[in-house]
């Protein structure tokens, strides 16, 4: 009786593992393939692979950063901006990843696009200090010092003079 149960348990584990592996494997293999092309400098070739990996639902910080970098390099600013906006709905997304994304936009002189995303996020979540800090820092990096000062004052709960 015990042996039958053990065999059944092992069969269930094997089937489940196989199903999960198949699903996970396809996305990760695509991502790794894209990464190889990226490192070889073939950004056009890497883009569809990264997009396929994203569509497969790989929750990866590295994937998002790579995808954004490739899109910005290829001039697909709007797609990069939308991906950044979407990232705020992902449970794995974190402030340091948002900061890294902002750096990428700045590197490609597209800081204003990232600012749009952050402005929208701040409008939706005015009580998120982390979001406002990111927004204020980006304003400062873009040379919009007076606006940045206003945001920092808001963070301190002081009148935004």
């Amino acid at each position, binding site marked *: 009786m015990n042996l039958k149960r053990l065999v059944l348990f092992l069969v269930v584990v094997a089937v489940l593992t196989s199903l999960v592996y198949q699903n996970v494997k396809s996305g990760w293999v695509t991502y790794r393939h894209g990464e190889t092309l990226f490192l070889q400098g073939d950004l056009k070739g890497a883009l569809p692979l990264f997009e396929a990996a994203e569509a497969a639902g790989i929750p990866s910080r590295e994937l998002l950063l790579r995808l954004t970098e490739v899109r910005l390099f290829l001039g697909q600013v709007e797609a990069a901006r939308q991906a950044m906006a979407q990232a*705020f*709905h*992902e*449970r*794995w*997304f*974190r*402030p340091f990843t948002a900061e890294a994304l902002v750096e990428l936009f700045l590197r490609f002189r597209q800081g204003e696009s990232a600012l749009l995303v952050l402005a929208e*996020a701040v409008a*939706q*979540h*005015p*009580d*998120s*200090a*982390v*979001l*406002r*800090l990111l927004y*204020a*820092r980006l304003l*400062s990096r873009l040379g919009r*010092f*007076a606006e*940045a*000062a206003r945001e*920092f*004052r808001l*963070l*301190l709960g002081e009148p935004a003079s």
Partner: protein
Amino acid sequence: MKLSQPVLVCLVGLLVVLSHPLGAAPPASPTAGLPPGFGDPISDWQARWELAKVLSYTKAYDESIKEYRRLLADRPQLLEAKAELAAVLLWSGQATEARALAETLPPHLVDGSLRLALVDLHIARQEFDAAATLLQAHLASDSGDLAARLKLAEVLSWTKRYDASIAEFRRILEARPEDVQVRRRLANVLIWADRKTEAAEELRKSLQGR
């Protein structure tokens, strides 16, 4: 009907649980819908430091100085903020205060431009040793700053440390062998050091091609 003690305890417990607001839905978080981490608080000192910096960029020096002072009252251990305050004080024309503050800092924390401005202040007051120390600290982090090295070479010569001064002049000339003015200054120092043959050689080189 008489209830036993365990049943009574259970009933009281049930009443307590039902009357407790735990059963009610929690109030919506202001950052609901955002991933974890975005609802974390930010330290006031962090925001104040960035505010002080940004105000200095807009040349709102008085406001910036006020924020730096508030920050440092709360966090006196922030030596980098203190160094920045010294720079803002200098930019706002409060050179004496800037210098006093900078002197309380480890040399490596004093910003390059502030350091050079303080060097000029020391030179104006004929405090050549202090000027040389600041210049040496500056060159330790920026060895390619030939203007600072030239100033160091001169300061060393004014304190009669001729060998050290000559060594600095020669390092400058390694990078800029065609700089006639630097070569002539070196020749002067060689004369002060009573190394007249070498001085004549440097003067001859400075006249070549003319």
